[in-house]
């Protein structure tokens, strides 16, 4: 950092910008969180008092949102489970489909490699909405709409380019000398990848997996296209969006939104630990 001391006016400007940015970024989220803790009637009657009084706070909206429709709730618990299955399946399929290819394009000098890299970047930039047209038609013909398997196929299409791109960058950043040494010691190529590259690259793979999970967790368009008829299979975003149509109390919708956010935040905290531990073991050796 520069040792130059700044005039007070500039420091005041900096502070003002930071405070405004803080209010703008966190304000809406805090608003949603506080509103989800209030009874719906109270929120309707006095929209300007944001902070709930202590006797007003209730978690009813959360209970009702999560409960199944059979128990008089809005079934969000089931939707979350669908989202979880879908996102986990996508992460697994996408990483498996791209890990060897990412390594090959990062390390092995084979002819056609640069063409391969161009294809990766091109599909990475490809508009996902365009694929909605053929995938909708083809999967309807294959009878895979209203099924989570069909949706996993679509999500793999959306995430394989990202996965390839990110993993390749992580593999490029690894020191090649250890791999060369293992090769010279007689380790096969697959052995090198399995025993050396994957363990060292684990933080990178974890980060990629997390990013793919977030894409699948957030996805809404394809869930709407394929699952709208099958209420049992609704994902959490689709469920909340559909409930919006049915005049559901806003406190329920906000409670649902906060719950949908929790796995992402949790994953961030967990993956951060994994990233740090991965780096630490890398440094010891």
């Amino acid at each position, binding site marked *: 950092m520069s040792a130059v001391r700044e005039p007070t006016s500039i420091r005041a400007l900096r502070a003002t910008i930071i405070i405004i940015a803080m209010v703008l970024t966190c304000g809406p989220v805090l608003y949603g969180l506080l509103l989800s803790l209030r009874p719906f009637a109270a929120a309707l009657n006095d929209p300007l008092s944001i902070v709930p009084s202590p006797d007003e706070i209730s978690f009813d909206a959360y209970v009702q949102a999560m409960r199944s429709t059979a128990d008089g709730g809005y079934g969000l618990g089931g939707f979350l489970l669908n989202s979880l299955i879908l996102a986990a399946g996508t992460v697994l399929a996408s990483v498996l489909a791209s890990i060897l290819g990412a390594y090959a394009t990062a390390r092995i000098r084979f002819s*056609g490699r640069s063409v391969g890299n161009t294809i990766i970047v091109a599909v990475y930039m490809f508009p996902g909405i365009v*694929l*909605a*047209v053929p995938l909708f038609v083809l999967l309807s013909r294959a009878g895979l709409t209203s099924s989570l398997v069909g949706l996993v196929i679509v999500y793999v299409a959306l995430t*394989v380019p990202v996965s390839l791109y990110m993993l390749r960058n992580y593999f490029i950043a690894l020191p090649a000398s250890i791999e060369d040494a293992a090769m010279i010691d007689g380790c096969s190529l697959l052995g090198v990848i399995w025993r050396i590259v994957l363990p060292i690259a684990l933080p990178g793979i974890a980060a990629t997996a997390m990013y793919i999970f977030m894409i699948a967790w957030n996805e809404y368009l394809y869930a709407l296209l394929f699952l709208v008829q099958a209420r049992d299979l609704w994902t*959490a975003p689709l469920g909340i969006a559909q409930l919006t149509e049915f005049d559901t109390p806003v406190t329920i919708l906000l409670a649902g939104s906060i719950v949908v956010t929790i796995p992402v935040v949790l994953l961030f905290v967990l993956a951060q630990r994994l990233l740090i531990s991965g780096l630490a073991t890398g440094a010891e050796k």
Partner: protein
Amino acid sequence: MSDARSTRVARGSRLSRGQRANLHGYLLSAPSYLTITLVILIPFCAVVVFAFAEFRLIDVSQMSLGTIDWSLANMSGALQSGRFWSALGTTAAYAVFTTIGVIVGGVTVALAMRKPFRGQHVVRALFLVPYVLPVIAAATIWRTMLNPQYGIVNAFGTSVLGWEAPIAFLTTRSAELGSLSIPVALTMVILFEIWKSAPFTFLFVTARLQNVPAELEDAAAIDGANARQRLTHIVLPQLRTVVMVLVLLRFIWSFQNFNDIYLLTQGAGGTEVMAVQVFKQLTVRADVGSAAAYGLCMTAILAVFGIAWALTNRRKEAL
């Protein structure tokens, strides 16, 4: 045993280094490219066929390349429809303004956050909240804030700012402000996207700023450069490359955005961008050919933009 081994070694060595690298490369990348081919390239070819073929949904099962009636009807239909051009205009406005907003916002905050202060890490993490927040949660919160009945923005506007009536921000096409006509709903989806994506820019610019050597600025200060001169002549030029990459990425992502807009407005109030149009042609009108034609035009525009960007950058690097 030793014979067998030596033959294997001999056979192995028959492949040259380059040939073996090729073999390994192809074998290892086969699963990835097979996946890309199956789930992206073949479907994309189908888009091209759908866009240029006389096509009905029931024909798909017995369709083969020989039996296709090629036709320009879908494409010319798209290019002659007013919906297409208005969607393109909306998309262009949306992409340009969100890109500008995201870059200006991200860079401004990143610059303000440069000097270390107590609690900086926490503040930095909190700035990322809108980016990490699932889109559905962000959209629900914004819809609530902007709701005419119980939303805080309208409550504040009517009781504090003295608005005559609440404003339906997400469905109003345009409003007069003095002599200016403002596209209300479109402005809202643009603001939403800036709010959601500026943290991403902030993250990248912050990472780049940490690599700007402090000595440069100190030297300039000793030479008498004031704060503004140090900013425009030393710091900002260092950000050029990262900003260029962010402009490209943001523009491409905004141009094809569906979720964020549809979840906020469902395309109401003049927010029908290209992606929403593709979706509506496909679902509401069940017109696969026209949806494909819209999608193909979108891809073509992005491809032209991408190539132009790559060429300009190459030329600049060559200079």
